[in-house]
């Protein structure tokens, strides 16, 4: 709760002073921060951003356009949170700081409104989202795209080119909540596969690969009906009220499947859902249920690595794993995906420097902060050029798209895969050869 002298435009959603006060400005986090690494500016560092929030809280400064600019440049990658010895809940602070920007008389207000509208009215509505993705799918898979790129037609508009670069190479059939997955004979466990919003529309192939891998491990995945968008992007953008609403919807929708684990193959969604207990802590009707729900959530790699059954797999290639921020930093899961890859025959796992440094995709970030996003992508591209992997593997859909773009930038031919797809291919290759 904001103090009475504070300059927060939206005091009800203000960052908690207790959270802010945890920062002892020791500076140990600054070099883990991608935006500090690029700019060298204290105002673009976690310590600086927290200090500014504290100054607004204490009424020392107004929430000016400059302050907003510094917060807007934050990727919300939470690398700072993972290294902070003092336990500063940076992710939570920044969500509440962003919640102020909606209300503040500020620059970029029109853009913020549009974003809020799209997040609420498109992302969170399965039918509208499906209708919106259909033409995109057609475009992504169409020969026109290659022509556009070859003839440099796309150069006509930077926005157009940027949009095109964000599109996956190919968009498969969707897999939505309520769709049926192949039955698994003699399954030892049932798990809910979290279908998500964009994930289900654009990355249906990854969902099906996830289900096949789980099936080989003796787990029957079900895409339970009624579940929907996790609300992560809403919370990151500061629309906490709506994020809470989406959390409640998912809690209700999946109540009947308890105590089955909820398996998530998108790191950003998993991180948000593991924190449902936190964002609903003030909601008396839901607080306890939210905590129970959160305790069921598992990242796919976390879950798969812990299962007893580890099928044979073969994938002879030079593979580099790139940590999604919300897996490594928010969920602190680094070893499980690597361990899964290490058990694959022929898979030569190469580490690149800065594998856990944000790629710049960061949800909607690549669209709203194109310059910083491109700089971070270029850094990845040059790492890929040096390491020359055959395959770049990650565990979050947004990162995959950014890596596709980085591969093009590097001028190399590496494949970009979700770890579930790689495991699926590797296991079916081993099964075929035996």
């Amino acid at each position, binding site marked *: 709760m904001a103090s009475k002298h504070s300059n927060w435009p939206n005091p009800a959603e203000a960052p908690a002073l207790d959270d802010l006060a*945890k920062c002892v400005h020791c500076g140990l986090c600054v070099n883990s921060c991608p935006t500090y690494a690029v700019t060298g500016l204290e*105002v673009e560092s976690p310590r600086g951003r927290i200090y500014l929030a504290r100054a607004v809280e204490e009424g020392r400064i107004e929430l000016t356009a400059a302050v907003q600019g510094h917060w807007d440049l934050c990727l919300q990658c939470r690398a700072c949170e993972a290294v902070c*010895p003092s336990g500063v809940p940076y992710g939570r602070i920044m969500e509440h700081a962003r919640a102020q920007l909606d209300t503040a008389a500020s620059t970029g207000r029109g853009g913020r409104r549009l974003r809020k509208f799209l997040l609420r009215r498109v992302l969170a509505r399965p039918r509208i989202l499906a209708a919106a993705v259909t033409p995109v799918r057609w475009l992504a898979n169409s020969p026109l795209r290659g022509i556009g790129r070859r003839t440099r037609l796309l150069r006509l508009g930077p926005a157009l080119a940027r949009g095109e670069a964000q599109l996956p190479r190919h968009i498969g059939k969707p897999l939505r909540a309520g769709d049926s997955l192949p039955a698994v004979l003699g399954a030892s466990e049932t798990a809910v596969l979290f279908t998500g919003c964009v994930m289900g529309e654009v990355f249906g192939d990854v969902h099906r690969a996830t289900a096949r891998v789980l099936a080989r491990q003796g787990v029957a995945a079900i895409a339970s009906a009624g579940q929907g968008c996790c609300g992560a992007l809403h919370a990151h953008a500061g629309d906490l009220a709506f994020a809470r609403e989406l959390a409640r919807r998912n809690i209700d929708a999946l109540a009947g499947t308890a105590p089955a684990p909820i398996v998530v193959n998108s790191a950003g969604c998993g991180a948000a859902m593991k924190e449902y207990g936190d964002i609903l802590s003030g909601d008396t009707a839901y607080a306890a249920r939210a905590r129970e729900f959160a305790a069921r959530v598992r990242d796919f790699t976390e879950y798969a690595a812990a299962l007893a059954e580890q099928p044979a797999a073969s994938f002879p290639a030079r593979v580099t794993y790139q940590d999604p921020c919300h897996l490594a930093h928010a969920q602190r899961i680094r070893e499980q995906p690597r361990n899964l890859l290490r058990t694959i025959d022929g898979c030569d796992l190469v580490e690149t420097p800065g594998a856990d440094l944000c790629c710049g995709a960061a949800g909607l970030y690549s669209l709203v902060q194109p310059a910083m996003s491109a700089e971070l992508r270029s850094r990845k591209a040059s790492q890929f050029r040096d390491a020359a992997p055959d395959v770049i593997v990650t565990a979050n859909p947004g990162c995959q798209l950014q890596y596709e773009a980085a591969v093009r930038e590097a001028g190399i031919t590496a494949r970009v895969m979700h770890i579930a797809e790689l495991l699926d291919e590797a296991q079916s290759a081993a099964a075929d050869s035996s």
Partner: protein
Amino acid sequence: MTTRRELVGGLSRICGDANVLWRPEDLLVYEFDGTIERSAPYAVVFPANTEEVAEVVRLCNALGVAITPRGAGTGLSGGSVPARRGVVIATARMRRILEIDPANRIAVVEPGLPNIQLSEAAAVHGLFYAPDPSSQKACTIGGNVAENAGGPHCLALGVTTNHVLGLEVVTAAGDITWLGGHVADTPGYDLRGAFIGSEGTLGIATKVVVRLLPLPASIVTLLAIFDTIEQASHTVSSIIAAGMIPAAMEMMDRTTLQAAEAGLQCGYPPDAGAVLLVELDGIADVVEPQATSARAACMENGAKEVRVARDAATRELLWKGRKGAIGSLGRIAPNYYILDGVVPRSKLVEVMARVGEVSERYGLPIANVFHAGDGNLHPCIAFDEREPGATKRVLEAGAEIMRACVDAGGSLSGEHGIGFEKQQFMPWLYSETDLDNMGRLRGVFGNSGGFNPCKLLPGGTGCGEMAHNDAAIRAAGPDAFV
């Protein structure tokens, strides 16, 4: 008289608009370092090279504006806090490694390079840079030079001054000069030695020539858990008496252990009263027998458990708690004030008792971290600055502890520097003549009082208590005088 607009204009002409900060909100985050002192500058400037640094210094001198150098702002004595406002010269854009010469085992780096990046780059050649402050992920080589920084591994190898061969410096007067060189033992006065540890009061280091050492062939780390600080202290003495000089010997007390455990999950037992970390390195034939006798020394002095690490991953785990210890004190209270005293090893237990007594009398929790091998202790007073009068009481308690260190035959600073907060204690250690002579050295480098004012030596004009200068920040427009 110069207005802020003119000052910022002048800085922008030298370094470019994009490399000067002047908005009050932006300046606010340059009002602090790792400690509790605060004062915001009029402008922050980010020069790209030596020439730009020199031009900025000359401009500020011409305008009569105070200058404060800044690295990463992790300092623990207020050194980079602009006490008399003026201009902060930040080295953040000068962070390149200019040269690594594995044959001669030296590297030439720019001052803004984070310490850890030097070690990472050297490791490729099988080399490392010895001074490893616990803040090494963030702090810069320039800041290390200014504070003559040490670290856990400086027990056997020495602190920054033992590993810096030469410096290119822009003096307080704005001249560019070299101190020392690319080899050890250059003839003439050792101005390099005088500059290292001068806390940014003589000039700005713009290039640093450092010595690199070969990575040790074999490393064994022991973590011993004790019931009491006394047992751990006696173990330190036994190990030294046995003729060993470990690479590192670090101690933490109960309060620290609990914070570190809460923050970092290092696997310390909840009832541990003290932990001692001992690291031995060298060739395996020497290290292994040493490890055996160090382990025996721990057991003889009552260790409950001794953990041993021989590979990098386990070692990192044992070190994790120590490296993050100070930061994790944020778990005890929102603020901490970290002291940096040195006492003769034999007086450690006695001084610790005084620290405990001060803690009780002031009702302030004090956690203790030590570089035990060289008697450097870091009592950290935990408090909440939002409580009225808290900061003042903390400073008083801190002064009593510093006095206890000096009374025991020790000193005011092991590695964090005197900075702003301890300058008034300098007369405890030095006569007026001693201090006058040091003051004259400033003149030699062209510092007549405006170059990092109010630091290191007592006195100086306009060096009252630093306060939040909010009113000043808000009220002064671009046409206010600096």
